[in-house]
């Protein structure tokens, strides 16, 4: 066991605060970076939730698809909206980081919505985890889709 207390781990939700700060600036590179931070502010808590539920994500690039697919494709209505947001943020993040010709970041509109979406996704994740019956059903749905 490492001598680091769990409380010393950085909360990945703080990435969303970085994204919000970047939204107050007016350059495309800030908005692209905000899109990146918004994605990770939701993806990492979703990955960690899956781990707590017994679905350990690979420690490789495959983690993105692993997390996204379990929320998006598992047949449970409280997982789908989170998966939808993850899916959208993932595509936007990829464009933000790799596609310099993308027009998605010429205005703040798309990124501002992405930050709102990430916040919404985190709230939905929290609500799911706070409801034991729903959480059990969600875990069963993931297990049925990804045995």
């Amino acid at each position, binding site marked *: 066991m490492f001598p680091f207390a769990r409380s010393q781990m950085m909360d990945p939700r703080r990435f969303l605060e970085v994204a919000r700060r970047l939204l107050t600036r007016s350059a495309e590179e800030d908005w692209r970076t905000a899109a990146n931070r918004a994605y990770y502010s939701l993806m990492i808590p979703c990955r960690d939730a899956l781990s707590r539920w017994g679905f350990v994500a690979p420690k490789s690039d495959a983690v993105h698809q692993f997390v996204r697919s379990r929320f998006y494709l598992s047949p449970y209505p409280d997982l*789908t909206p989170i998966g*939808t947001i993850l899916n*959208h943020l993932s595509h936007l993040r990829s464009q933000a*980081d790799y596609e310099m010709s993308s027009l998605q970041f010429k205005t703040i509109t798309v990124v501002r919505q992405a930050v709102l979406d990430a916040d919404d996704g985190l709230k939905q994740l929290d609500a799911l985890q706070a409801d034991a019956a729903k959480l059990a059903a969600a875990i069963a749905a993931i297990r049925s889709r990804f045995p």
Partner: protein
Amino acid sequence: MKAGGKAVIATTVPVTIEPDAAEQIDKLGLRAEFERILDHVLQTTLNLTRVEVTFPPSYEEPNETVVVEGFGIWDDEQFRDYRERYLRWVIETFPPEASYYIHVSLCPVADDGSQAIS
């Protein structure tokens, strides 16, 4: 769309489908779903100026998803409205695999369609 706002008839919107995107749609076996999704976007999204269908590269992970990117002249409220209405429709209409592998993205642009609003 806001009442009284100028509308562009969606059926006149130019659609570009990259060959590798068309190939991927067929490989996924989602041709019928793709055509219905594209038709829905064209018919229900006012002030759409063009649509591009691409198969993005695999940058950090293997990509299997085709992206339908719709460009149009919308304010924030219209953008949110079209996006939310599309997501509701696609979730109600298809099994999740269809919208997982065919991703629709909307992008607000300026009147000439080539340069975004600053």
